[in-house]
């Protein structure tokens, strides 16, 4: 293949060095940008002038975060972008806090379900984002405080958990598979506020357990039970991931049968 880049004619005079040429180009570009920006600042209408009621400081901070990290998919003013992300109008601060604090949002990619990962924002930032979405469109909110477990009754929570939650999250809160790559996640890392928010808002494939289905006291009870399971020390030994008979069956072959076949080899070899 031939190189198509233009090369100066062999006899043409060389005027300036490459570096100085680039420097002057950059300077001119900078000046042009400054001019355009100045014009925009002078003539564009101010942001403050639009809204009817001014937003709180937290919401403004949240908006700044939103405009840098969420706007690509959820769109301008959280109205959603077709094919990328849903509108956040009316989802409330509870949903935002849950999604952002557990690291599910910002999502890494479009797939069956966003998974829990290292959060991108601090708790404070997540709540600022929540305040922004809340003041933008309203929606369900979490009660104040960090400790809900102590307000609940563990044994009643257990009964509610087994009826409402275990069919997807499993008895041992280990989670389980749903159809087509979707799943109910494990609850081993969830905090009180996250569990409450999940029940209240029904993230991803989870149904919503509104206050008419599980009133706040029911939710506190369930949270108390989940926390009790998180604190359970597996009195029987290593819990094998608490996956039930599948790992138990693996263990009996990988440990029991293998150990005893070696024992048989050893004993039969002694003759």
């Amino acid at each position, binding site marked *: 293949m031939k190189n198509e880049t233009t090369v100066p004619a062999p006899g043409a005079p060389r005027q300036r060095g490459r570096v100085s040429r680039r420097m002057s180009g950059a300077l001119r570009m900078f000046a042009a940008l400054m001019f355009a920006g100045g014009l925009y600042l002078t003539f564009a209408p101010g942001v403050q002038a639009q809204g009817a009621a001014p937003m709180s400081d937290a919401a403004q901070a949240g908006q700044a975060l939103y405009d840098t990290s969420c706007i690509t998919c959820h769109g301008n003013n959280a109205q959603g972008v077709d094919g990328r992300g849903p509108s956040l109008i009316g989802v409330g601060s509870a949903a935002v806090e849950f999604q952002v604090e557990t690291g599910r949002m910002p999502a890494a990619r479009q797939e*069956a379900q966003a998974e829990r990962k290292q959060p991108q924002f601090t708790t404070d930032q997540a709540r600022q984002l929540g305040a922004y979405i809340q003041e933008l469109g309203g929606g369900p909110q979490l009660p104040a405080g960090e400790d809900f477990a102590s307000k609940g009754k*563990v*044994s009643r929570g*257990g*009964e509610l958990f*087994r*009826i409402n939650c*275990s*069919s*997807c*999250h*499993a*008895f*041992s809160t*280990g*989670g*389980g*598979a*749903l*159809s*087509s*790559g979707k*799943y*109910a996640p494990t609850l081993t890392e969830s905090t009180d506020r996250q569990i409450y928010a999940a029940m209240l808002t029904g993230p991803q494939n989870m149904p919503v357990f509104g206050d008419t289905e599980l009133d706040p006291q029911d939710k506190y009870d369930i949270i108390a*039970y989940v926390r*009790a*399971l998180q604190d*359970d020390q*597996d*009195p*029987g*030994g*290593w*819990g*094998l991931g*608490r*996956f*039930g*008979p*599948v*790992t*138990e*069956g693996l*263990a*009996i*072959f990988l*440990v*029991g*049968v293998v*150990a*005893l*076949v070696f*024992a*048989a*080899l050893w*004993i*039969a*070899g*002694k*003759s």
Partner: protein
Amino acid sequence: MKRRKVDLKALPGKSAEAVDARLHVATPLRSLLNKVFPDHWSFLLGEIALFSFIVLLLTGTFLALFFEPSMQEVHYNGSYVPLQGVEMSRAYETALNLSFDVRGGLVMRQMHHWAALLFMAAIVVHMIRIFVTGAFRKPRELNWIIGLSMFWLGFTEGFAGYSLPDDALSGTGLRIASAIMLSIPVVGSWVTTSLFGGEFPGEIILSRLYIVHVFLLPLILLGLVTVHLALVFMQKHTQWPGPGRTNSNVVGERMFPRYALKQGGFFMLVFAVIALMGGLFQINPIWLFGPYEAAVVSAGSQPDWYVMFLDGSTRLMPAWEIRAFGYTIPPLFWPTVVLPGILTVLPMAYPWIEARWKKDKGHHNLLQRPRDVPDRTGLAAMALTFYMVLTISGGNDIVADKFHISLNAMTWAGRIGLLVLPPLAYYVARRIALGLQQHDREVLAHGVETGIIKRLPNGQFVEVHQPLAPADDHGHTDLPYVGWTVPKKMNRLGALGPAVRGFFRPIEQAAPPVQQKQVEPPPTREEITSGKH
């Protein structure tokens, strides 16, 4: 008073004489203690099942002292906080008390459960050994059938035990069992209602399962174990072919003392493995499951591993419902009633099927190596693959969840795999068996590879072979193929030092090199000076 002198050395003989004078046991005991057993590691797999059965009887007796199979409603008041005040059956309460309030109860429960899993695992592994070595052939067909029956009895026994604590998981299992019984055409509803004493769950099922679990099935199992072992005594143990071993002798060790001591030691090891697993690995944590209620179900509900293949077949079965003559045959009927039926009858008939197929009605006391009957080895691989696909499908939601695979993809992989993989396994296993056989025959014909490469005058490279017998002009030996190990390394022939034994590291010192006689120093050579260029 004069002290009577006791001759300590004569004491055992004297007391034995005294016993024999009264009971006349010397003659039968002598033949029993002198009975010869062949020794090979693969003959000890059935013993694992036998010994875990003994552990099951011991630990089960302990559990029965504290467990009450009652469905009476009570409020839990024991020491496990998350369930305090919860309404539950007396059975679940006593199972919880066993775990938390009876000293040593939890480790006993866990040992019992691990022993049950080991019992079934050992049965399956033992059964594979019997099958691939042809130990089921005439005259041992009856023992093969007894063994298969014990698998199904152990299966039922295990399922009954899994159902007894009345936690939510065992209740779910029982619910599925009742659904399976309901799916049987014509008699289904009658069978179910008579077993449960009405509609599921009723109030009687636990007491019935309890009697089945602690009395009926253990008694039948014990009886069958006795017959199984008695038949091994009567028909004598099979042995591998080899030097000095024929179809009409048994080469091995006497029952007493060596064989009995080895078996005693092996029992201790089985006991130790079960005790270690019971102490180290948590199994069936019923307190996490809560009491059974009809509305309660959990993700990841599985039966124990030996039942999982039926769960898998149910998950893979398409929802084909047949309606004819006013009756409905639900899809559940095929994978849970018809399939186990086939899996019982077909293996039981296999000894006769093979005898017809191979036209072999002979009396066999010598085993066959898996490679020497490639068809049967292929069938074993086929059956095992079928079973494995079903078992993995029984846990396909756990696999899907933990390895981030779509559950739908797992189901379809199971459906396609169930049809495609077994024939593939048959082909691969058969080819491997033929290949191994071929290599044995090659060694018999050409000798052992020495690793020495020779270059011929025409430039060709050949490996020098050590023939196993005087060879003809072409270096070929005419040794018969006897179906037993052929030496494949020079140290097996004594041409090199023996291989140092050991698995990961040597367990013995390499034998010191044989001290050679002081060889005379070679005559000094003088440099050749003439003819130098």
